[in-house]
């Protein structure tokens, strides 16, 4: 029997690794993947708490999180492709002006 806190600590660890990825990496694609990592850690927390509170609502929250994360990935990557077409780079350091 694995206690609840193990799942929550694992979720916290994955979330922190996602934060490190967003802060450290300069490639926008890697930053996107680190954001997906953070979303997945939150999903794990929701599912663990749903089981331990014997309520299905946590899994419904994960359902909607997955849907919205999918849409966010699609729109974000479309914008990334467009930025790459304009600037020929996806480095966050070099795309730092709002002016086109």
């Amino acid at each position: 029997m694995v206690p609840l806190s193990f799942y929550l600590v694992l979720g916290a660890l994955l979330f922190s690794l996602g934060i490190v990825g967003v802060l450290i990496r300069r490639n926008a694609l890697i930053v996107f993947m680190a954001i997906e990592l953070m979303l997945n850690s939150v999903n794990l927390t929701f599912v663990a708490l749903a089981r331990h509170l014997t309520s299905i609502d946590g899994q419904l929250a994960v359902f909607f999180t997955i849907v919205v994360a999918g849409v966010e990935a699609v729109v974000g990557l479309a914008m990334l492709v467009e930025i790459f077409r304009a600037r020929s780079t996806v480095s966050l350091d070099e795309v730092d002006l709002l002016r086109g």
Partner: protein
Amino acid sequence: MEALIFVPAAVLAVGGALGVVLSRRPVHSALSLLLVLASLAVLYLLLWAQFIAVLQVVIYAGAIVVLFLFVIMLLHMQTGEPLRDPLRKQRPVMVVVAAFFLSGLTYIVTAGGVALQRGAVAPDFGTAEGVGRALFTRFLFPFELASVILLVGIVAAVAIAKEVPGLMVHEESTVEEADVLAAAADH
């Protein structure tokens, strides 16, 4: 018994997360993300969330990671990082900040009175039937909103990534500019 599955899945998830954050090439990061998603699907199965586990594999691992790989291929990235990094001195500080954040979170989830014992759940807890029953009764409005969000996302992605002729700076137009400048300099 459950720990026999939890420990390898958790170790693989953390290893995959480290791979996502630390890999040199974006393709390696995408494959590490796939490892994380698969490990989390196994953990969802441990937690009586069969429907969510299958959704995770089909949508996240099967569509979103494939989308990432397509974009990596489209952008034809060779390396991940530029040569110069103006914030290089801040990198250890960022890791320390994240470590503080992790310790704070760990304290919150382990020190409080969160000593929940597992109760018995209905046999259809976490199945498609169990999730669907809640989805179409209590969560009907968010469900309809989710379909609207999906539609908006599809239209937005097509509209953003569509090439509008004459809007972007193409090779030919810069050559024209140079010709115009040369012609102007001749006068």
